[in-house]
C-alpha cells in the first residue's frame, strides 16, 4: 500500500519524458534531437544545425507544405519526409 502510494506520487510529480519524431511534436514545444535518421541528407541537416543534442521547436506545420522549425537560433523549413526521420525527446 505504502509502495503503491509512493509510486503514484512519483508518477504525479515526476515530469513525463516523451519520445517522438519531429512530425508528431506539438507546436512551440522545445525538444532535444536524439537521432537524425536520413543518411543521404545527413550532411545538409548538420549544416543547418540539426544534429544530436540540438534544441528544436516546431513553429508551424503543414504536412504537404513543410515544417517551419527553430533549431537553436536558426529558423528553417523542412519537409514532412525529413521531419519523420528526426527523433527527439522532451519533458
Amino acid at each position, binding site marked *: 500500500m505504502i509502495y503503491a502510494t509512493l509510486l503514484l506520487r512519483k508518477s504525479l510529480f515526476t515530469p513525463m519524458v516523451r519520445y517522438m519524431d519531429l512530425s508528431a511534436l506539438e507546436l512551440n514545444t522545445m525538444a532535444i534531437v536524439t537521432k537524425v535518421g536520413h543518411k543521404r*541528407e545527413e550532411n545538409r541537416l548538420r549544416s543547418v544545425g540539426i544534429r544530436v543534442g540540438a534544441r528544436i521547436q516546431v513553429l508551424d506545420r503543414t504536412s504537404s*507544405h513543410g515544417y517551419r522549425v527553430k533549431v537553436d*537560433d536558426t529558423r528553417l523549413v*523542412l*519537409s514532412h*519526409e525529413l521531419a519523420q526521420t528526426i527523433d527527439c525527446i522532451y519533458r
Partner: protein
Amino acid sequence: MCSSCGQTKHSANKTQTPVVALVGRPNVGKSTLFSRITGLHRKMGNWPATTVEVGSADIVVNGQEFRILDLPGISSLAPISPDEKLTRDILVEDDPDLIVAIVDASNMARCLYLVCQLKELGTPIIVALTMSDIASGRGINVDIDALSRGLGVRVVSALPRSKNGTVELEEILAETLTQLNLDSTDPHESNLPLDEDQRINFVSDILATSVTRTNERSTFSDRVDHFLTAPILGVVILLGVLWVVFQSTTSFAAPFQDWIASFISGVVTPPIESALSSIPWLKGLIVDGLISGVGTLLTFLPVMSIMFLLLSLLEDSGYMARAAVVSDRLMRFAGLPGKALLPLLVGFGCNVPAVSATRSLSDARHRLIVGLTVPFTACSARLAVYIFVAGIFFGPNAGTVVFAMYLVSITLVILFALFLRLTFIKGATREPLLIELPPYRLPTTTFIVTDAWLRVKGFLREAGGIVIITVVAMWVLMAIPISGNNQFANTPVEQSAYGAIAKGISPIFAPAGFADWHTAGALATGFVAKEVVISSWAQNYAVDSPNRKLVISDLGKKLKKDFERSSSGNTSAAVLAFLIFLTAYTPCVATVAAQRREFGTKWAVAGVGLQLAIAWLLAVAVFQIGRLLF
C-alpha cells in the same frame, strides 16, 4: 599550389598586395559588409579556371593597401556546391593573408562552428560580429570580450547597414595587416584538427560563457512567416509581389526610355548627320549602325536597372528564402528544389546572370535543368517588346496581355524542366525540402544600388558588345543591294541582302499567322539580341523621326496592316502567336554563350534547337486554335 596564379603557397611577408578574405555562412551580411567597405570600387569576375564569380576590390585604409575578396557563402569546409568548393579551395590552397569570419550574432552556433574550422587552417582570423541589432531584438546579448577570449581571436562588432558601422573593422584590418607585415616570424600556427564532436563541444562552451538570453519570445520574423509561408496565402502573396515588381518596372522605366531615345535622336544624331552629309555610306554606318546600336542598348537600361533593383531589394530583405519555400511544391512538380527559384527569378531581369546563378544548386543535374530552362523566363528585353506590341494591338488590355505572357513563361519553365527531367536529364535526385530562413531586415540603399549596378555592368560587359555588333551587321546587310539598280548604303531595305534573307525565312511563320518579312527579319535579329527587335522593325519599315512617339505611332500602323494581311484578318491570334514565339525562342547569343561556358557546347546547341522547335510549335498551335475562337 595557388589555383589562381600557379605559384607555390604565398607567405605572409610577400611583397604583393595582402589579401583579406571575407568568409561566412550564407545570409550573415557578408556581401553587405563588403559593399559598405568597398563602395563602388568593387568588381565582380570569374575566379581563374572556374565559372564562379568572386567580388574583389583594392582599398587603402590608414595607408595600408590590401585586396579584399567576397567569397561565396559556405556552411562548413565540407562543401556541397561548386560555390562552396571554390571558397574552400581558396582558403586552403591560396592561403589569404587574413580571414575575416563573419558571425551572425542572432545565429551564433552555426557560425562559430565554421569559425572553429577556419581556426584549424592556421591563417590569422578576425571575427566580425554582425546583426547585433537583430540579436538584441530577440533577447540575445553577446559579450564580445568573453567571445574573443573564448575563441582566441579578435572580435569586432560591425553594422554594415549603418553609415559608419564598419569603420572600426576597417581600422583593425589595416592595423592587423601592418602588424603581420612587420612580424618576421611565420604567423601560421599549426593547430591540431578537431573532430566534429570536439568542435560542437567547443562552440557550446563558448556560447555558455559569452551569450546571455533574456526572455525568448516570438520574433517579428516568426509572426510574419506564419503568413508568408502559409500554403495558399503564401502563394497569393508571392504572385502579388511578382506582379508589383513587373508592374513597377514597366511603369517607372517608360519615361526614362522616352527621354533617352529623344536625347539620342534629337541631340546626338543631328550634328553628326550634318557633319557626315557628304559621305552617305559613312553617315549611314555611324548614325544607323553604331549610334542606333548604342541607343538601342541604352533604352533598355532603365527596364533592366529597375528590375535588378527590385530583385536585389527582395533578396536583401530576406523575402527570397520565403519565396523559395512557397514555390517549392511547384518546383518539385518539375523535379526541382525550391532553391531553383532564385536563378529563375534573376532570369526575369536578364538570362545571362541567371545562367550563372545556377551555381548555387548543389546537384549538377539540377544546375543543368535550370540552366537550360532559364531561356524560357521572360527577361526585361522581351518585356520591352511585349509592352510595345501589346500597346499597339491591345490598347487598354495591354497590361493584362503582358501579365499573361509572364504566366505563359512560368508555365513553360515548369513544363520544360519536367520534360528534361523525364527525357534527356534523368537521374536528378529529389532533394527533400530544407531551406534556412534568414531574419527579415530593412534593405540598405548602398547594397541594393551597388548590387544592381554590378549586374547591369555585367550585362553591358557580356552582351553590350554583341548588341552593338548586331545592329552594325544589320546595317551592313541592309546596305548591300541584291536587286534593282541600287548603290551600297543607298538601297531600299526590301531590295537588300537583309531583305532577301528575311523573305527567305518568312514562309516558316505562315502557319503561325505572321509570315511577313519585316517581322521575320526582326525575329532573326532578335535571335542575336532581343533588344534590337523594335529597332529592326523601325529600320525594316524605314521609319525614322526624332520623336519616339511618332516612330511608335507610324510603326504601329504599318505593323497592324501587315499582321492583318499575313493572318488573313485573324490579327489577335497572330499577335498572340508572335508573342508566344518571342517568349519561347532563344533569348540572345549572350545567353547561349553563358550556357556554353557552364554546361558545354553540346547542351548549349541542343538547348537552342529545342527552344526554336517549341517556340514554332506553340506559335502555330496558338494561331490555329486562336483563329477559330476569336
